[in-house]
């Protein structure tokens, strides 16, 4: 039997570097999931380093018949679940002091993304080390770039802009009832608050494009995510004791449209529309119910009436 080939250190290093660089780039992709603090950076890059190491070592280890090293991959899953927990807890704690809450659905979505990015890093590191080992160092540079672009493309979620149109809408009062377009939002009892809302309020209506979109917009978590992002970018004209300026999104039960008013520092509708369109569709909210409904109906037709 031939002796096992030596461990390919160069392929390992290429994979490791590719993975860490990919993790760094992914930290910057999306302003909403950007850790705002140097410590957040450090912890994510460190985890990214571990993920890259695990991914990069797989192939060289297998080639040199170091099977025990390969089994370490199994540890990765447990390791990275912790990241999800870490993000969930951190954002959950921040929630108490947010003027506009992200909501549990959004937090869960962000936490999952952070976990998944480490698996993507492992994948990129693994691909790079395989290619570097088989076809030389230069291809080990091209491959991770290609793998990176592919994963970023595949892992990019859908956004509100795909399922709904964002239209400006008139903010008005019917007695104390705040309305945007035809949608009643809330009862504001103080004259002074009503004046501020009329003056600084920016109203918008989201029109769902398909029946599925209508169901997605009905999801409370999805609506909260939209409000959070809008408030983050445009800046709320609100403090903890001015409850009346807390944005709410309500739906028109007839049309499925969702309307909201935000009292903001920067009343720029174009920015608002852009922000809303870029809000990710949450996993918990995405609906394929219309499709399901059709299938059940077809089944019902096939089976005919039942006793």
């Amino acid at each position, binding site marked *: 039997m031939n002796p096992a080939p030596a461990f390919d250190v160069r392929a390992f290093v290429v994979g490791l570097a590719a993975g860490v660089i990919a993790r760094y780039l992914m930290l910057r992709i999306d302003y909403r999931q950007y850790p705002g603090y140097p410590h957040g950076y450090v912890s994510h890059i460190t985890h990214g380093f571990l993920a890259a190491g695990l991914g990069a070592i797989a192939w060289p280890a297998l080639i040199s018949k170091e099977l025990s090293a390969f089994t370490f991959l199994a540890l990765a899953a447990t390791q990275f679940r912790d990241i999800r927990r870490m993000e969930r807890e951190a954002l959950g704690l921040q929630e108490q002091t947010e003027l506009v809450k992200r909501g549990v659905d959004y937090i869960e979505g962000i936490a999952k993304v952070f976990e998944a990015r480490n698996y993507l890093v492992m994948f990129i590191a693994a691909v790079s080390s395989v290619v570097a080992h088989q076809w030389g160092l230069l291809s080990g540079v091209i491959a991770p770039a290609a793998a990176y672009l592919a994963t970023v493309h595949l892992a990019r979620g859908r956004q509100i802009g795909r399922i709904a149109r964002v239209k400006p809408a008139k903010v008005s009062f019917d*007695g104390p009832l705040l309305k945007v377009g035809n949608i009643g939002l809330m009862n*504001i*009892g*103080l004259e*002074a608050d009503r004046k501020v809302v009329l003056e600084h309020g920016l109203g918008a209506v989201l029109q769902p494009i398909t029946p599925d979109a209508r169901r997605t917009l009905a999801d409370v978590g999805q609506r909260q995510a939209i409000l959070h992002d809008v408030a983050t970018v445009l800046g709320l004209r609100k403090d903890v*004791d001015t*409850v*009346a300026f807390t944005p709410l999104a309500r739906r028109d039960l007839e049309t499925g449209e969702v309307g909201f008013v935000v009292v903001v520092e920067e009343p720029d509708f174009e920015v608002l529309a852009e922000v809303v369109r870029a809000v990710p569709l949450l996993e918990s909210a995405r609906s394929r119910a219309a499709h399901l409904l059709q299938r059940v109906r077809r089944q019902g037709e096939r089976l005919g009436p039942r006793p």
Partner: protein
Amino acid sequence: MPSIENAILAVVTQHPKEVSGGLPVFIVQDDAAAQRVAGSLSHILDAMVHDLQNGTLILVRH
């Protein structure tokens, strides 16, 4: 911080006969006074003022 949510914390009314029950009721003479009292309470309690449109305002923390 303990907090009572989705319950009526206080009532500001011009018609005390139309409100009863175990909660703080502030009786005022006119709309201007109602707005003033309700405004102060709103800031103190971090609560939202709702207008029942019968001369009565209620404060609720959501």
